[in-house]
């Protein structure tokens, strides 16, 4: 058989197109945010997404000038550095409270996280965790 299977050609072309789209995406729109734990924050500045456990007291409210204030600590760490968070915007999700694992997106500056979004983990996870 002198002619190659056209299926191969199509696959090769398709793979090339897909790769090109990936490259294009990363070149134009490829924005990723560093995802850190509270203890890794020092030295960073700007947009971050921080994964940690909420440390009380939770005070204030997200709609006011002062914002909602709480702390974040590394997951799985009983003690250790607590990074303060000031959060503005929509009220946090109903599952948000001290001891819960959350992802806070926002920016980190002067030792403080200015939060713009809070995501709690899927509720099915909580039941699997031992009571804190």
């Amino acid at each position, binding site marked *: 058989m002198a002619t190659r299977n056209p299926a191969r050609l199509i696959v090769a072309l398709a793979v090339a197109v897909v790769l090109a789209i990936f490259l294009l*995406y990363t070149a134009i729109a490829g924005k990723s945010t560093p995802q850190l734990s509270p203890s890794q924050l020092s030295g960073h500045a700007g947009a971050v997404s921080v994964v940690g456990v909420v440390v009380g007291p939770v005070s204030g409210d997200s*709609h006011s000038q002062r914002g909602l204030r709480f702390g974040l600590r590394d997951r799985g760490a009983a003690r250790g550095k607590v990074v303060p968070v000031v959060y503005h915007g929509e009220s946090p999700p*109903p599952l948000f409270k001290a001891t819960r694992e959350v992802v806070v997106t926002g920016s980190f500056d002067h030792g403080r996280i200015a939060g713009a979004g809070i995501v709690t*983990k899927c509720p099915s996870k909580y039941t699997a965790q031992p009571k804190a």
Partner: protein
Amino acid sequence: MADLGRAALVVSFGLALYALVVGAIAAHQNRRRLAASARNALLACFGSTLVAAIVLATALVRHDFSFSYVASHTNRTLSPVYSLSAFWGGQEGSLLLWLLVLTGYGALAVAINRRLLRDLVAWVVPVLGGIATFFSFVLVAVASPFDTQTAPIDGAGLTPSLQNPYMVAHPPMLYLGYVGLSIPFAFAAGALLSGRPDERWIVATRRWTLAAWMFLGFGQLLGAHWAYVEVGWGGYYAWDPVENAALMPWLAATAFLHSVMVQERKGMLKVWNVVLVALAFELSVFGTFLTRSGVVNSIHSFAQSPIGGWFLAFVVISSVFSVVLILWRLPLLQARTKLESALSREATFLYNNLLLVALCLAVLWGVLFPIITELVKGESRTIGRPYYDFFLRAFGLPLLLLMGIGPLIAWRRTSLRALTRSLAWPVAAALTTGIVLIAAGAGSSSPGLIAYSFSAFVVAAIVVELVRGTRVTGSLWRLVARNRRRYGGYIVHFAIVLLAIGIAGSSAYGATRERALRPGETMTIRGYSLTYQRIVHPPNANATETRAVLDVSGRWNGKLSSGTNAYRNPPETSNEVGIHTSWLRAEDLYVITDDIRPSGVVYFKVLVKPLVNLIWIAGVVFLLGSAVALWPDAREQRRLVLRLAPARA
């Protein structure tokens, strides 16, 4: 009774291990009675797992808090139904459900095919035994649902957001899907192990794959609806790793359902098909792990979860097994024919497969991105919604288009002339839709516009197919009966179109407004004006309900209430949104109370979501189409028996 549960799981483990080891020896040494014994072990494994499941279910319903699992997932106030649903509310219970469904499916598949495909089944048994060995081992040694403790007076309770009918149905549905994908995997691996080049495994597993795929798809839509009405943030899909966990195997299975037809018709794509079956299976195991262990945002999350390392090891071992097996049997998987033309049905299936797998891998890349960047750069980075939305458009829109073109193209090859003739109506429909939409002012979103035009194209293509077919056969009924699989498939295509219209409508043409209102104040959105009246506290035994009552006028006149429930046990709060569905306008008015202040001020977030209901209707149409394709076909059955019978005589 926890001891009985534990013992039953140990027995299950022993039986699964027996099915694996002895089954492999029997198949390898070609020993009939030994193979039958291994097969029986698999059936018995289902029996003993069922005993363990009954022990756990009984403990849940009877509030036996000496079971740690029962104590940490239920409490006395929980109704029997929700107590039972805690079976899959936690990690240990859902792993037990996995094993139960796996052994149940496996026993059934093996029992059904034991006569016609005896030589093949001999190799399927050890593969299923291997998977069951892993899950029963985890249940016995790592995450036992039968750990006991001194019974506390009351349990911790079930998270309120899980206490609703959706969460009773959604997880088992997903598990039926996830686990169902291990049956085609086991048969494909069995066929390769047995070293036979025939395609009996495809015939034997076609309906299993379809059923698993249907459960997985419908389960996801149930989950989306739950998120929409119960979680109450105004959306239905957030590209969360847990959600992606179910989407990825579904995409791989969708690709397989299409490409397997090419193998049946033309004897091509054999390697590709076994790769897809293995991919779907690995992704379903990975998905189970993601769902059970939480956000994979770091390498450490594997270590933090007790089951993480084991699952990772299992995924690696089973992937290596699959790859080695496929490479070893490569000579058996030679294609019999070649692609005759780039303009043929089989070629469109190939394009569709590439797009589906590309989308699946793009999602996988997004899920794994934090881990990969941590490994490569030493810093974990995430990519959010824009990434997924980009790839959904980049691969999803061409897929939508292909869904219209594919059915109009004949197998082997189609001349451009015949294709142009077939495409005339669909293209006209797409153009008309596009022009009408632009005239109506829907040009604000080009992805939305494209999605709608393509949707019109697909619907027109399906109609053209049905009309032409009906003309030949005389009646639509006879046409569908002639090839249920194909026309069931078209119904599913129609469901996907509805889904696409719903997604495009609610995301591209929706509106959102946030306002803080005092009693008597009014806000407007898209022709609705909402006046906040007062706060009420409807009675509820288990929670303090707070509702803000709104008078709505304008496009719709009525009352809506929205607020929160503060549960006493467990002490958690849930959002209770107010939704008004207008079926005539096909849009939802969706009210979230973001914050209720003691001062009387309430922060409202109001959304108007056009066409969102089509997504839920799509779920019903999807089920209908799958059922048509699944429906037993007596003629097909006779043909198969005729094909296989002489070999068994």
